[in-house]
């Protein structure tokens, strides 16, 4: 037994298992179709909302670009977002109309682009009551990324909410805030938001620690 107060408190805590890159073959484990493997009974993938889900049906698309301007074609992304009413649906259930969690890859539906089929999230309040603008939390995993990078996707057509969002405003540089704003496109009756993630250098996307 440990004598109370005999150790610095940090020493009484376990260390987190260390992270390692998900590597180039991450798809075998987390995106079977992209690896060329047959699907299992249920897979976690990029359709967060069915047509029955409340809210505006949208697609989120984008590329991941490295410091040389080259496409990162082996990235895996995870999305986490609220439903149209601003509530997280934590119980993952493929029978439900909406799930807050999904996965995609940069080769998912067209070369070098990732895609989520979802609905536009509602606003979520922080504990202090301040409303955050509608957003999607994204985690990026890839070969050459030693621990996942966290960012947030915001929506261009939510200018008022974006201007008041305490998290966007935590980014000191107004120019860098722009790296978090997805651009709205409409084609063939579909609403799509485009969000490129720049890992390094000019226009580098803001990444968060939390």
């Amino acid at each position, binding site marked *: 037994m440990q004598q109370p107060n005999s150790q610095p408190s940090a020493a009484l*805590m*376990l*260390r*987190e*298992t*260390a*992270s*390692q*890159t*998900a590597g*180039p*073959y991450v*798809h*075998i*484990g*987390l995106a079977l179709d992209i*690896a*060329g*493997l047959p699907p*299992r*009974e*249920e897979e*976690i993938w990029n359709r967060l909302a069915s047509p029955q889900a409340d809210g505006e049906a949208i697609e989120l698309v984008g590329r991941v670009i490295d*410091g*040389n301007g080259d496409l*990162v074609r*082996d990235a895996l992304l*995870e999305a*986490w977002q*609220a439903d149209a009413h601003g*509530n*997280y649906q*934590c*119980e*993952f259930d493929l029978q439900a109309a909406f799930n*807050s969690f999904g996965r995609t890859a940069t080769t998912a539906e067209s070369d070098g682009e990732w895609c989520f089929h979802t609905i536009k999230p509602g606003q*979520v*309040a*922080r*504990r*202090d009551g301040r409303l*955050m603008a509608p*957003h999607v939390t994204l*985690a990026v*995993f*890839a070969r*050459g*990324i*030693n*621990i*996942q990078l966290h960012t947030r996707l915001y929506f261009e057509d939510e200018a008022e909410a974006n201007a008041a969002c305490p998290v966007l405003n935590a980014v000191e540089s107004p120019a860098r805030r722009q790296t978090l704003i997805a651009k709205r496109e409409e084609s063939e009756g579909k609403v799509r938001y485009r969000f490129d993630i720049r*890992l*390094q250098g000019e226009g*580098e*996307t*803001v*990444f*968060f*620690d*939390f």
Partner: protein
Amino acid sequence: MPLNDNKRFVERDRNWHPPAYAPGYKTTVARSPSQAYVSLQTPSVSELAGPDFTRLRMGPHDNDLLLNFRADNEAQAGLPIGERVIVFGRVVDQFGKPVPNTLVEMWQANAGGRYRHKKDGYLAPLDPNFGGVGRCLSDDEGWYRFRTIKPGPYPWPNNINSWRPAHIHVSVMGPSISTRLITQMYFEGDPLIPLCPIVHTLRDPEAVETMTGRLDMARSRSMDCLAYRFDLVVRGELQTYFENQG
């Protein structure tokens, strides 16, 4: 997961994890952010909650890589080639509290060091009876378990002659997206571990120990398979006792 935003997680120690820029692992050079991360001082439910996969429907052999991929061709159908092993462990948080019903996923190369992936063109052959993917939920006390074959080491283009030690990629969700972690399990005693540029992205030798699966003879099965124990530690959950936070 109740949507409780009154909790906090122990801050992730970014000096313990590998840094984004680790030039010995060359691919990190162009894929590492150069700007500082923006720290969220007031995490919200967007960071504190996470998906619960209790209702994800899984197949009976999803955690058994000896049985979950079979050759299409009857004449070839059988068990995969390689050393039969059980890989098991407990998911706990930094305070030692078990993490029940959390999704643990893994993937790996076959016994020859070849991945069943469109993009892997290594010389070693595919095994018609081995896919290389597994998943399960930890049980009520945080335990998880897979049955598989020990993967082989393989060469990769980093330095002129770089080899990956035998490893299994392991992914764990934990109670929140803040606890989400992907790591690799290495096999105790592998002489390639200290030579690996990806292992070397870690600065602290003790951090490498946290990624080492340990031979556990007590859990091995005579005339059948060896066992390796690999516990996973995710960020600890703190309760906040004071209401002075905004």
